[in-house]
């Protein structure tokens, strides 16, 4: 009742799958990206 957990991608779980490298490489000067596979 005192803690609300937001839905987030579990980074530890994503470590088990390996990265595919397809995600995109605004400001020209990572957290704001989207996963191509999700």
């Amino acid at each position, binding site marked *: 009742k*005192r803690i609300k*957990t937001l839905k987030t991608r579990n980074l*530890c779980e994503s*470590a088990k799958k*390996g990265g595919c490298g397809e995600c995109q490489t605004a400001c020209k000067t*990572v957290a704001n990206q989207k996963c191509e596979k999700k």
Partner: protein
Amino acid sequence: MVHQYKLNGYNIVLDACSGAIHIVDELAYDVIALYPDHTPEEITAALREQHQVTEDELRECVADVEELVRSGQLYSPDTFSEIAGTFKERSGDVVKALCLHVAHTCNLNCAYCFASQGRFHGDRALMSLETGRRALDFLIEHSGSRRNLEVDFFGGEPLMNWQTVKDLVAYARSREEESGKHFRFTLTTNGMLIDDDVIDFANREMDNVVLSLDGRKEIHDRLRLDYAGNGSYDRIVPKFQKLVQARGGVRYYMRGTFTHANPDFTKDLFHMADLGFTELSMEPVVCAPDDPAALTAADLETVKGEYELLAKEMLKRRQEGRPITFYHYMLDLEGGPCIYKRVSGCGSGTEYMAVTPWGDLYPCHQFVGEEAYKLGDIWNGVTNTALREEFRACNAYARPECADCWAKLYCSGGCAANAYHASGSIRGVYEAGCELFRKRIECAIMLQAALAEEEA
């Protein structure tokens, strides 16, 4: 590692390694802070009177915290340092994105330009079609199994070599089917040469357009002048509005730069919103510390306050049905990057490179013109392999200064060019940039908390 902070009425707890985010009440906030170094009995004794709660309530709260720890959503161990270098190693010498400098010349003479008015400390030049085609061939040849390839038309001012841009897009499209690749194009422009042909073509072929506007007329025209010394605001704003409207108001960013003249940059963002632009990106100037445009220590405090003000205003505008987007507040908590991308960063110098009009390769657009950072060229590939390895070694775990930073899996080690310009080394740390980055992420997460509350 856990980071706790309070913002806009939310008590936020971020578990850095699992990525879990918890919104908690005052009691849970304090329990979580005490949890690593105190027994449940000590926590109960310390907080019962302060929070005016019963022992049962406290025990229940401690049990909830223990459950989160057990399930790997709080104080989760950092197991990523060992894999930090592996993703880039596995990627081998794959290149998947190029920044094509189609014009090392510009029709504006902006005082703060990191590219020295588009010349990048060298001669004025336009990329030939032949060089551009070879760059695209180089990208396809070195892209391995990657399907998505990205090309940014950049300068200088790319519209000063517009026919070449169009011909290169056509050439890339002609190679997509046989090579099994998909090209995504971006165009970055100051807007001076936008006409109906540019609008039609860009809106058909460019996945994203980045439009340079600094906000209020007096701010924009202070530094973004033509060679006759005249401001550019009145000439470009109507063109940008026409392009964005024809584009359906999507897949673009208004890209502004704020300097010592306007650390109160939200006024400029809101001005752009008043002009009808909703997709906004505003960045601190990158320049030498003694440059008159450079942000001072006092400016940084102002800017941090502005980031909070912006987040609150965005909430208000969303509730009023007139939302705006700020690039750095775009966090997709469920569909964001995996841990490998977060650890390895932007890919400059390895999977992402800049190509000069002469076909030379550099780690990214911000290194062009720095001879020591030339990687090779598009005919012979990367010949300075030691430099490529130096960039390959850059990741979220590469700098000892980042060991205790909760935000490193968001910044991914930060921008190598900013580190170089601030410290003289790509393995250095751009402290002011870190400070602003952490504030932006705190605001972005708060916005996600507010969104979740609205949806509940």
